[in-house]
């Protein structure tokens, strides 16, 4: 991607790889690599929300966790604000740990049940030596207020809160260190519909107020579309399409994106009846043993001989529009249907 010298880019991921090794075979002698994330590249601009979608096992969470360096990078570069952080040691990484924060999926598992809410939010302040004593307390109250909770909540424990409120606590904890970039790993999928909207609106407001940049990982496509400026679609550890969110929904090019979008049930009975659903056959193949060539070919109705032989590369077929498919040009021009 030619955004290397662009000052707008906050984070650039280049050919990122994350393999997990797994012993298989008799006596587990054979080493096999599970290529969870296999050579993906994208960039995120300052103040933008980049959505990452895909089915379970496609590597979307692994991507998020690798960027924040919860996992070690197998290959490729993560360039944050001009600096390559992909192989920094923990001490050197500390300032970036402050700049990059994460919100997790399960608000029940991601908060320590034995700590008060005040301590949960205050912990990052202690770790990074940001505030002590009274200023620390003031900051905690301030953060609680930012996420729509009140002072009194600081002395309570997580079990006293509902799912939506816990997610707010998780967000307050992430905001404590004044990050620039927040990775939201399915932050709303464990919440009820009416509560989801509360959290999404809050993330939206915080972004405007604090100038945050988000990487929003989710499998709920309609919510991702709602919150993101640009969206990347992953399939079996490969990026298959990147586009601005409106354009992606209006005119998806990659057959997988098309199928994914047409699988969403629309909350409108008449529209739903009209939609010509493209239902994918079969399941996602095992990432331990992915198909040769294009990984989607086993479920793709357009697949031809070339698809099993050659792996399609992610190419820019129009400005800000990347697709990895041998027939992307034809799909784009509408000559292949």
């Amino acid at each position, binding site marked *: 991607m030619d955004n290397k010298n662009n000052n707008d880019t906050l984070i650039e991921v280049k050919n990122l790889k994350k393999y997990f090794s797994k012993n298989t075979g008799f006596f587990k002698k054979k080493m096999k690599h599970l290529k969870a994330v296999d050579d993906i590249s994208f960039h995120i601009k300052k103040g933008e929300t980049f959505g990452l979608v895909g089915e379970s096992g496609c590597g979307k969470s692994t991507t998020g966790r690798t960027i924040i360096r919860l996992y070690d990078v197998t290959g490729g570069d993560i360039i944050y604000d001009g600096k390559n952080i992909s192989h920094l040691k923990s001490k050197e990484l500390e300032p970036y740990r402050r700049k990059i924060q994460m919100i997790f999926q399960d608000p029940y598992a991601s908060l320590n049940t034995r700590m008060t809410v005040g301590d949960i939010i205050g912990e990052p302040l202690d770790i990074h030596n940001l505030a002590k004593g009274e200023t620390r307390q003031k900051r905690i109250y301030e953060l609680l207020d930012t996420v729509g909770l009140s002072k009194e909540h600081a002395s309570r424990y997580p079990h006293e809160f509902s799912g939506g409120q816990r997610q707010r606590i998780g967000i307050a904890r992430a905001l404590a260190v004044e990050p620039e970039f927040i990775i939201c790993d399915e932050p709303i999928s464990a919440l009820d519909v009416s*509560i989801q*909207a509360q959290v999404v609106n809050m993330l939206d407001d915080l972004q405007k107020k604090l100038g945050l940049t988000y990487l929003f990982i989710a499998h709920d496509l309609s919510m991702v579309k709602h919150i993101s400026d640009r969206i990347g679609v992953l399939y079996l550890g490969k990026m298959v399409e990147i586009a601005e969110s*409106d354009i992606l929904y209006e005119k998806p090019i990659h057959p997988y994106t098309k199928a994914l979008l047409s699988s969403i049930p629309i909350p409108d009975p008449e529209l739903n009846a009209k939609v010509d659903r493209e239902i994918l056959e079969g399941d996602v193949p095992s990432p331990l043993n992915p198909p040769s060539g294009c990984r989607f070919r086993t479920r793709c109705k357009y697949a031809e001989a070339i698809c099993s032989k050659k792996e399609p590369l992610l190419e820019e077929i129009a400005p800000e529009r990347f697709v990895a498919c041998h027939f992307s040009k034809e799909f784009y021009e509408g000559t292949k249907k």
Partner: protein
Amino acid sequence: MEKLIELKEVKTSFFTHLGEVQAVRGVSYSLNKGEALGIVGESGSGKSITSMSIMGLLQYPGTVKSGEIIFKGEDLLKKNKKEMRSIRGNEIAMIFQDPMTSLNPVYTVGDQIMEAIRKHQNVSKSEARKKAIEMLTLVGIPDPEKRIDAYPHEFSGGMRQRVMIAIALSCEPDLLIADEPSTALDVTIQAQILDLMKELKNKLNTSIILITHDLGVVADVCSRVLVMYGGLIMEEGKVEDIFYNPKHPYTVGLLKSIPKIESKERLVPIDGTPPDLLNPPKGCPFAARCEHAMNICMEEQPEFFHCGEGHRSMCWLLHPDSPKVELKGGVR
């Protein structure tokens, strides 16, 4: 049309050490033969507990306190355990949310389908096996003659849910209760499962109660919808009524809080949190979160108001004496 099942003022409570949790607080509805009814609501609204009450699957400390569940003219609540066992799985079957945990890992898939068949039908082992293969073919499992001897761990999530459906339908039940059948699955697999359910409904004329929190799924599969909140039915109507002309502020709130595909309008969430059913509010359960709440809403539980054929809503706003509020919230 013939009524298959009718619930009359069913109340279910859990008697915990903290007190009585009134999970279902008087629910009445009926379902016709061959109809697909969707029940939507948030967690804790009582939608799953209502169906567990039908199935007689409530576990201690939960019990149905009062009410009647008339299935084919007989009250299920008056049946003893043995009678319920012959109905469950045979005439009423259920599919659960999590296909990963609802199959027994130490028996083959075939054993588990055959178990259901042999329990309710007087057939030989080989006949049951033949029937099981038939069922696997019906739900779209490739190579069923071989796959019948596979164990659940050899199947993917979507395939396991297909097996669950095969077990549920193996005795050709009159009623199928599907509790969030596609929630644990990916969207592309969800589309496959929903498609299969629609197809089977038409083929076998099974009545379906589909419990979900996903309004899209309801719009796709069901013809009628119940909206539940705080252990009560808030609104009931045909899908078109509910989606295009909702008459209850809660339904409106739900529809507003889901993003629209075509626009990036700001979402309108419902503020606050659902009521605590340990001490349910005396009036309308939604009153505390409702922007149109009046004094009476806090004091007295509203009755159902008729808003058209088969469309009813439990809201004081529809009372002739209340101020006229136009609820704008249909998806159109």
